[in-house]
């Protein structure tokens, strides 16, 4: 009976504030450790940071085989929208974990993506060389006069 009353009281007074606090603390941790945009994830970091997902840039570079070919998020989106989808790109730029970037990298290099990087990769393979793709996410910074991009984390290298 006491347990039931305590549980009821907890639901009525503490459950939702506790849930809010737990989600917000998790968001702060993910922003600090996994590159989540402060604007998202339920931590109330909106209008607190320049680093919003729409201002981020994801770059992709095909390396190895004595060549280097670059691409960026808008190009990736337009040229691979059929195979990857806009929501995938939004999710990746908002929360660019290593596994997400690897997944994107593998999809980009697959023949189905029909992306110029995939075509170049296929050509390299036919020539007997396995190229790799390097993905990197950048955030906008402002020093009071100039805007620039800084890397959120080091590049992620993906080999299909």
């Amino acid at each position: 009976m006491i347990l039931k009353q305590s549980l009821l009281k907890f639901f009525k007074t503490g459950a939702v504030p506790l849930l809010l606090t737990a989600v917000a603390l998790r968001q702060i941790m993910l922003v600090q450790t996994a590159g989540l945009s402060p604007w998202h994830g339920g931590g109330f970091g909106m209008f607190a940071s320049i680093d919003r997902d729409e201002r981020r840039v994801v770059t992709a570079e095909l390396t190895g085989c004595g060549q280097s070919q670059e691409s960026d998020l808008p190009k990736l989106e337009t040229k691979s929208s059929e195979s990857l989808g806009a929501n995938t790109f939004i999710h990746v730029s908002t929360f660019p974990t290593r596994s997400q970037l690897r997944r994107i990298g593998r999809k980009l290099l697959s023949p189905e993506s029909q992306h110029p990087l995939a075509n170049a990769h296929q050509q390299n393979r036919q020539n007997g060389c396995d190229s790799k793709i390097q993905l990197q996410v950048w955030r906008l910074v402002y020093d009071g006069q100039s805007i620039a991009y800084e890397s959120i984390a080091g590049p992620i290298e993906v080999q299909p």
Partner: protein
Amino acid sequence: MTLFQRWSHWLDELLEPPVYLLVLRLTTILLLLHGIDHWLWTMLPEKLLATAMLLRPRLVRQRWVWLAMSLCLMVHNLWHWSNLVNHEYLYTYWVLVCTIAVWSRTPRQVLSWNARWIIGLCFFFATLWKFLGGEYLDGSFLHLTFLLDHRLAMGAVLFGGLDLTTLAENRQLFETMQTSAAVLESQQLVTTPRMAAASLVLSYWTIFIEGLVAVSFLLTMPRWLSQNRDWVLMVFVITTYAVIPVLGFGALLMVMGLIQTKNSLIARIYLGLLILMPIWMPLPQVIFSILQNVIF
């Protein structure tokens, strides 16, 4: 009877007990309207349910309906957790509170208690983020936002003395930089010392007012601050959302403010601000837009 007297009488009618039912109905309206500008298909069940609740008012009292609404919002929230912004989370928390309230014997107390805590915690974390990011302490966040965000063009012209052509050039510069992914080059934006100073002052004002809302809602001491917490929240809502209109967030804050206050006059002001929100919130922007076309 004057227009003001009619208005006042209408508010009194709306606030007739039980007030918690009014809050549930207002929440239903907000659930139907929020997020329609960035539609996702996972919103469909909650919109259908909210429509049904508005068409059949008896459903607003039904426990299972609120439980279903909670499930809809939780699924939507979990599905898009990394893309959703603050107030979309806040809607989910508030619907959970509404659900617990309709299942309890004391719905008003449940809504009132949780509203106070949710407002307090939301502002606590918002203030905490202003310190964690560091971009508020040197004013750089607001400075850049004034320079790049078209919604703040009014502020950039009025506070910073910038002209609209310069702001458009700044935006163009950033867009070119982003679309070309020129990540290794920096670009200088055009600004004024007045814009930098105004951004710094407004940054500290934001930290002050948000922190004050957090303290006044979470703590009972100092007593004078706790007793005047509603006025602090209203000052925040009016000063912030008149510059950056975020209707969904502002409206939900008014609904939560309304149920947690014990003062009937303040409840009427909350309700009045909520009803008139579609008019007063975009008004400064509309006036600025008209002036912009006439003068510039």
